[in-house]
């Protein structure tokens, strides 16, 4: 057998041990080695034969995936009874177990409590097949509508910006052609020299078609206009339309110029609108924004740290804009920061520098702290916590000292609550439980009492949350949850056909470290709550358990940019108290967004994910930000 296994895969044969295991399972005790060999060869041959027939059914079923029904049909061809009831909703339904020197893959069959099934609400009836028409091409040109794939895929946009010489025209973007051309290089060498000058980077004129100009005009007007409904529509369009890349330079200039002008004029409303545009652009999965960061980031940073953003700083809520912009900044750091552009470290440096400056105004100070805090708990831990005492003293000077101006006081107040909000959760995680006010005073100075109460609140809420989590997971466990959106298409009628309307955004996840659960020796399995999106309320939830090692890959592969797109949509509830790491209670299900970048942190539990209540924003929006229209299985 050993030598056979070494042979090429074409003559792979089942190991004889399998035969023995199977024989034992049907009660045949001692099977001769010879019989095993003979059996395994015969079985392997038959399996291959059936698989080859099943492939035919797959091809005629116009699918790329072999399904169990194909195997059934192939068996039927051979006049063999199909394997009934072997429809799996998972790709590989087998579980692995080892022990006593044997390794075993088995098909897990759980005991099902009937009353549970009876009590769970029925899954939604799968949608009926329907027909929808759209223009794939109009006189040879593919219109940029949501039903069509983006005209220039992100990779191509990237290639255009990074390797302009290699740009291929749409319609000929076959890899083959490029390769073919390079392979044919020796023959066309002479030609290549003639073509030399042509191969220079072509001057792109960025001319927009009339329709595009109209669109641009409409969109920009709607975005900064007074009609909120129109604006929502326009932002939606920016966030989803696949054909915007040609207009991207205009949009980015529009935003950066707009910010420049409106900061001078202190027009808070317009600044907010512009920031929402930035967000919409970042949400659009088809755009390659990297090229325009040099315009967008300064604009965003301006909205975070500018001294004055509105005409009446004492009344207007420019703090919210700063918060929003800070979150945008954090999002772009996560999405775009690379080792080459170092966005995150440069931004951090900028914020820190102006924060450290004594002359900095309270508004700017607030922006800097917000910007830093949004970057994550690590940044808070290393940059903000050590300065709490200093900052506390400064706040104290304003609050308790002689009244200089009302504006300063408001500023100091905001800075204080901001610090409390962000630091409490971090402190709750890094400090051991006994929260001693005196001890805090030594460490954090003026802010200590408030901080201490916040931390305590955070801890209690986390504990409650943990309980609630346990309860929730118990109540909504469904028989066989599925991660994938598509593969369950042919599955049986029961159970989650619904996955087709469920997305698995990586951000909508729930960590349940479940303190004190002894039954989990290995890194605890992560529980994901998958939010269905029906009419704004989460009506379909599923808890999906996956080993954390797996989860990382699954999550990133399904919806790569979900975190970034989602986060700013949902508001962080402002006045919440200190929390325990990982989770905290809300009135409904709690969903916690994980930083998509690193799953290792998640395992260590050192991250404080930003807690988000799903009830705050219509989930319809969150769905929109991923693959558009997946909820109804329509291509837009």
């Amino acid at each position, binding site marked *: 057998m050993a030598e056979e296994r070494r*042979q*090429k895969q*074409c*003559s792979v044969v089942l190991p004889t041990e399998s035969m023995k295991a199977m024989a034992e399972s049907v009660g045949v005790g001692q099977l001769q080695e010879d019989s095993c060999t003979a059996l395994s*060869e*015969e079985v*392997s*041959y038959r399996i*291959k*034969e059936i698989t*080859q027939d099943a492939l*035919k*059914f797959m*091809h*005629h*079923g*116009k*699918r*790329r*995936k072999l399904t169990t*029904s194909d195997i059934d*049909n192939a068996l039927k*061809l*051979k*006049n063999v009874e199909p394997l009934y009831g072997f429809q799996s909703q998972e790709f590989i339904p087998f579980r692995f177990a080892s022990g006593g020197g044997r390794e075993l893959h088995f098909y897990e069959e759980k005991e099902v409590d009937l009353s549970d099934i009876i009590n769970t609400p029925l899954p939604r009836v*799968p*949608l*009926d*097949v*329907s*027909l*929808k*028409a*759209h*223009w*794939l*091409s*109009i*006189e*040879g040109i*593919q219109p940029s509508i949501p*039903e*069509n*794939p983006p005209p220039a895929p992100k990779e191509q946009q990237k290639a255009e910006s990074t390797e302009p010489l290699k740009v291929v025209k749409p*319609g*000929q973007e*076959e890899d*083959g*052609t490029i390769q073919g051309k390079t392979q044919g290089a020796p023959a066309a060498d002479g030609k290549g020299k003639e073509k030399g000058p042509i191969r220079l980077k072509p001057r792109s004129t960025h001319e927009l078609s009339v329709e595009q100009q109209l669109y641009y005009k409409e969109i920009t007007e709607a975005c900064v206009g007074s009609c909120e409904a129109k604006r929502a529509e326009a932002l939606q369009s920016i966030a989803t339309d696949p054909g915007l890349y040609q207009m991207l330079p205009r949009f980015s200039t529009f935003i950066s110029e707009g910010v420049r002008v409106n900061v001078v004029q202190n027009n808070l409303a317009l600044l907010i609108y512009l920031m929402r545009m930035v967000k919409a652009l970042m949400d659009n999965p088809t755009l390659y924004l990297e090229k325009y960061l040099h315009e967008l980031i300064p604009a965003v940073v301006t909205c975070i740290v500018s001294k004055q953003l509105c005409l009446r700083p004492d009344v207007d809520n420019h703090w919210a804009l700063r918060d929003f912009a800070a979150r945008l900044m954090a999002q772009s750091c996560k999405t775009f920061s690379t080792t080459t552009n170092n966005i995150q470290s440069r931004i951090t440096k900028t914020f820190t520098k102006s924060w450290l400056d004594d002359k900095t105004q309270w508004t700017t100070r607030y922006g800097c702290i917000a910007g830093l805090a949004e970057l994550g708990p690590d940044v808070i831990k290393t940059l903000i916590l050590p300065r709490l005492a200093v900052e506390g003293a400064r706040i104290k000077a304003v609050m308790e000292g002689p009244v200089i101006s009302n504006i300063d006081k408001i500023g100091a107040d905001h800075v204080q609550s901001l610090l409390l909000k962000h630091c409490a959760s971090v402190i709750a995680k890094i400090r051991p439980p006994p929260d001693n006010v005196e001890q805090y005073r030594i460490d954090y100075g003026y802010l200590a009492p408030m901080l201490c109460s916040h931390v305590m609140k955070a801890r209690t809420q986390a504990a409650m949350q943990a309980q609630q989590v346990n309860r929730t997971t118990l109540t909504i466990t469904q028989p066989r949850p599925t991660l994938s*959106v*598509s593969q369950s*298409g*042919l599955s049986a009628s029961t159970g989650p056909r619904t996955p*087709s309307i469920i997305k698995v955004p990586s951000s909508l996840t729930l960590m349940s470290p479940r303190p004190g659960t002894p039954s989990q020796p290995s890194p605890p399995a992560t529980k994901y709550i998958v939010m269905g999106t029906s009419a704004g309320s989460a009506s379909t939830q599923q808890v999906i358990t996956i080993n954390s090692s797996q989860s990382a890959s699954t999550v990133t592969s399904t919806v790569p940019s979900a975190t970034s797109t989602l986060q700013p949509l949902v508001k962080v509830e402002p006045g919440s108290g200190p929390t325990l790491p990982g989770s905290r209670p809300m009135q409904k299900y709690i969903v916690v967004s994980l930083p998509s970048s690193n799953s290792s942190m998640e395992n260590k539990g050192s991250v404080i994910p930003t807690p988000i209540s799903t009830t705050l924003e219509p989930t319809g929006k969150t769905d929109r930000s991923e*693959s558009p229209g*997946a909820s*109804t*299985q*329509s*291509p837009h």
Partner: protein
Amino acid sequence: MAAIQGGMAEAVEIKDIKTEPPVDAVVNNNANDGSVLSASPGPGGSVGSTKPATGALEEKQTLLAILQFLKKNQLSESVDILRREAGLPQDLFDLKGADASSGSGGTPGTVEGGGLDANSLLSRVTSSSAAQAPVKAPPAEDQPDVSVVLSAYSQQGDPALYEVYYSGLKKFIETVLDCHRAELSQVFYPLFVHMYLELVYNNHENVAKAFFEKFSGDQECYYREDLQVLSGLTKKEHMRGNETLLDFRTSKFVLRISRDSYQLLKRHLQERQNNQIWNIIQEHLYIDIFDGMPRSKSQIDAMSGSLAGEGKREANKAKVYYGLLKEPEIELPLDDEDEEAENEEGKPKKKKPKKDSTGSKSKKQDPNAPSQTRIPLPELKDSDKLDKIMYMKEATKRIRLGRDNLPSICFYSFLNAYQGLTAVDFTDDSSLIAGGFADSSVRVWSVTPKKLRKVKSAADLNLIDKESDDVLERIMDEKTASESKLLYGHSGPVYGISFSPDRNYLLSSSEDGTVRLWSLQTFTCLVGYKGHNYPVWDTQFSPHGYYFVSGGHDRVARLWVTDHHQPLRMFAGHLADITCTRFHPNSNYVATGSSDRTIRLWDVLNGNCVRIFTGHKGPIHALSFSPNGKFLASGATDGRVLLWDIGHGLMIGELKGHTDTIYSLKFSRDGEILASGSMDNTVRLWDAMKAFDDLETDDFTATTGHIHLQDNSQELLLGCYTTKSSPVLHLHFTRRNLLLAAGGYNP
């Protein structure tokens, strides 16, 4: 077909059940009278049907076999004695081939009925292969050797020497002149397979494995799939009932080699006394020798790849009437549109004769067209005539397509199909869409505002005033109006679907082995045509209605008419599943594509196979005739589209670009653009005019039929349109040349 079941013995019985003897027999006998080629209906069809008729032949066969055996062993005296005693004339000997073929059913009888062990069963198969193999007697040395009749793989050469033989030949071929090398290399693959099978058959399992390991890597990449099947087969027991294997043994692998190269090979083998290889070449290979320059590697690669080698040249010599039938004369209401039609004259339009018909200068019959009554066609009804008039009106508004004038494409997505969409069809006037699904259902949609309505029930129909002018309108039940109708009846995935030209019927073929005819008036099933006992992969109505063709896993394509429950013709000859079937625009021919990677063209009149096209490297899933009937386009899992000239029986073009199986091909109404839709989620448009024009400038009459295909796919590609994760399952040009595409959205 035989191989589908476990053992041969069973298979024979099953065949008996499967085929409807009376009809088959007629067809097949017809075929035998007609042409040589048709004499090779798959082993199955004929075995079952003609067996009883051949009792007398059997003995003769046996005697012949013995005679030949004796002759082979130089026992000339015994030969004479036997011949005298049996009263066999001298010339019978030479007629052996023809004999065998005419009684192809009888050949199995040559082996005495008694010892039905595996050995004799297997050798039977081989023997019948010899019988049906090419019968036009090739040069003497190609005459199939006698020993086949006895047992094919029973020679007991030293297994260890096989490797030596093979590598010896390999060395020889590697050292011959370059011009011959490519041609001779063709021998490798069939030789390799047969040597391997011989080893396996003679129970040299380990040697066989080693042999496979050593040389399988040398084979051309397009045989990979077959090699995979072969690799699984390591025991004699496996050889029973393995289809691929049986194909190999029942059919001769056809090679086309120039005379020079062949002489070279022959001389080498004779010098080296390499009998083992020589025997295989004689027994299992059919070498089609031609005079002239040896072909180049690329020429060979273009044509090879099928399961049983290239098509024989003679196979493609039969005359094919590829011209179009004259359109019936219909009084076209004279209006200003007529003028336009006149202006567009000179355009090779499909419907041109029809337009002329108004002007009494009725065009002469196309010399390439079959006579109007070659096969009986249904008479035109009034409604058909109305439809023709509609068609003509639409045709005048047709957009002239071309390189600079690409069609618009409208894509119909099937939403929420959960990957279950398996077949799509449009009506010719693009008013209805039908979809077949894996859950056995068939759905029909109306894409015009006109909703689908059922006919009223019998009781209600009684109340209708039958004399009124709008009786056709009155019989419809308004209450049932809806945009789509669901048809239940199949018990397996629906793989093929086709509207009748008059839009009154719908055909669907399914995994359950039936073809069903549905009425689009009552939305009920009218007939279930049972004949294929295995999945039916495709079915299509004839462009003139009434006839339809189906093909499936049983390797037989059947021609039916809607009012008979048994097929009229059975087209047997493919070595693997028939994956797609298409009617020629003149309804006189049927093209079938198969998993054996060949395309065959069958004559509806007599059931003969008139063309065999080889060159695809994967199962063929799409076929399309050009509107003028001259050309055929085919698409396969290898992602290539091949273009064929039907009249000359030649491959004339190759369109590369798709990266996955091509499921749909369609020519525009004027034949200027070829659209292809694929699993890779793209629709591609090709310049068909250019592809055909380029060719006609070549020296086309070259008798050798060896074409140089220039690689101009990139020039011919006019557009590539990617869908959003929707494989393109069907394409259809409306009468005004708008391209409709359809596929399921699989997010």
